[in-house]
């Protein structure tokens, strides 16, 4: 396959292969990178099939079903140590936020008051959003230095501090998606519309059909 051969002369591929050698996985890796099931863009014949390993690394944005979550687990207790070491400086000892950084804890029951306090505890409708953001973008200035276990533990700590899960609850691929966030039904339209722009006026949804206001008990 001409096209795939070209690709294996790129620096990226060479690095991959040398890595693979180190792991005595060379035959498998080389096969995935250059051998089987190569597809290209029809008509133009450009592009190549990503390797399994590439797919795994690129496919890291986590959705509400948690399909992209890696194996691993953590509890609030484990998270507390990590949090104290890596997050307090900006988000405060108890997640209250250190000016000008955001609070991660608190705010429940305030959304329909003039003192609304929007935190991932009071506002965010899915726990996966928290996991995803910590995993890809935190801690600021040392982004993507946390292991999956770390991220599960830190998410557990934030959820437990907000009273959403128990201190002892283990967060993993399966339990995280089952967490019921208090503001799960605080947004509309739900699910969000995906209408093409030509069919929608610019007017805010606020001005369109509106569900009943939620109770103050939240």
């Amino acid at each position, binding site marked *: 396959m001409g096209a795939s051969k070209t690709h294996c002369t790129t620096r990226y591929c060479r690095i991959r292969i040398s890595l693979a050698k180190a792991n005595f996985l060379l035959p498998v890796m080389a096969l995935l990178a250059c051998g089987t099931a190569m597809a290209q863009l029809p008509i133009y014949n450009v592009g190549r099939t990503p390797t399994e390993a590439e797919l795994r690394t690129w496919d890291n*944005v986590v*959705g509400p079903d948690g399909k992209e979550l890696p194996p691993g687990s953590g509890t609030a207790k484990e998270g507390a140590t990590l949090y104290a070491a890596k997050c307090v400086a900006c988000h405060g000892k108890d997640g209250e936020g250190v000016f000008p950084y955001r609070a991660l804890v608190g705010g429940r029951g305030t959304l329909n008051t003039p003192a609304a306090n929007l935190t991932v505890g009071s*506002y965010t409708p899915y726990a996966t959003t928290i996991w995803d953001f910590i995993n890809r973008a935190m801690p600021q200035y040392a*982004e993507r230095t946390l292991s999956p276990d770390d991220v599960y533990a830190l998410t557990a700590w934030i959820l437990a501090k907000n009273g959403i899960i128990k201190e002892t609850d283990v967060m993993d691929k399966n339990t995280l998606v089952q967490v019921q966030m208090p503001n799960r039904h605080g*947004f509309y339209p739900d699910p969000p519309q995906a209408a093409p722009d030509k069919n929608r006026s610019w007017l805010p949804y606020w001005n369109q059909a509106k*569900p009943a206001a*939620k109770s*103050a008990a939240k």
Partner: protein
Amino acid sequence: MNSKLSDRRGFLKRGAALAGLAVGSIPFVNGKALASVTPGLIKGEVDTKLGVTPDEPTIQDLLYGGRSSYEKTVAIDSIGRLGALGLRNLTPLQDSIGVITPASFHYLVSRDLKLPNIDPREHTLMIHGMVDRPLTFTMEEIKRLPSVSRVYFLECTGNSGLAHYKSLLGDMKRGRKDVTVIQGVHGRTSTSEWTGVPLSLLLKGVGVQKGASWLIAEGSDIGRHAKSIPLTKAMDDVIVAYGQNGEAIRREQGYPLRLLVPGFQGVCNVKFVRSIKLVDKPYYLRPEISAYTNLHPDGMATWYESQVGPKSLITFPSDAHKLPGRGFYEISGIAWCGRGKISRVEVSTDNGWTWKDANLQQPIFSKAWTRFRLPWNWDGTETVIMSRCTNEYGDIQPTMLELAKLWGDDRTPPIPASEIEQWWETSSISEFLNNPIQPWRVKPDGSIQDALYNTLLPNPYFPG
């Protein structure tokens, strides 16, 4: 830290104090603020020699060219504390000419100033998820594909919002003199000619599977910005762009590859794009939850409101200018809309009593700035000038008070000057996607003031 009323209010309060920390320490030379890149960090005086062709250029100096040393316009660094929150350079709209923004004046929003400097030979774009053939493309391959060049505006969701005005006020109170409403409050919009591959071409090629309805685009920047975008929009007019105004996209704008999502709020236009995943629902990512949502007084919030409404601004004369005396002037400005073409711009030079159709620069591009012009003889008396636009679907730009009504605020003008701050604080107007008519007050001495944010004019202001 309790944020008041909503995210935006919290943002304001946190910001105001931050501005106190930072901007207060900026020294002034001849009344001109020294620029700081990050508030608190003094970078040195704005170097207006930047990009200038030397008086006696060598041939080397001319290989990339420069401008005349008499030209001083620059994109100012962020007013107040907004800079610390990632909102950075503002386009000098007061000096805008035609409809194209030079890349060097393009506004910049970026959490980190540590912009990646990506080697295009190393950059790839992977399209995966609910597709028949997941594929990875090199930049070289992307550039071999059929391309389009289109003129589109970009606009930050928070542009023209109250947070910008508050930030500007804070700076002015602290003596910073290089800030104006036209640039400091409205300057987060720019228009460029963008060149790249229609995303629909790539999506058809990889074979989007049944059931896919959204895509998740992710960038290679430090904060790995990612955003859910409706598939219908992607198939309609989204571009995977590598060219801007006849050259490669600048680093600030996402070199070597970015998404251009025409007419949608800036946050959708993922820079340094490296991954596009086809999925069956939006992913409720942080920039579509903790920010860019609107919390209403009853505790319910709206989300995924992406499309910029019809909007126009008089850029000359505006509060950055002073008219030397009575006589002829050409009023000039820009109008744009996230939904189709601008079809009409009206200008009033008498406080909103009467309106005249302005001339629209041709050709008119969809979802791009349209330049409008109107000849005007100023008789030297005080007046208020303003513009309002209509798009091809008949959507009309609202006044701030009409916007307030849309947001459920029924209080009617006039609002006494003493109550304006209070009105703003308690109004339920969204901080996002603001598109109010911007009136400018022309004073008898030729100076020009903002007549929107610092005052809610009693009638006659846009009668009826």
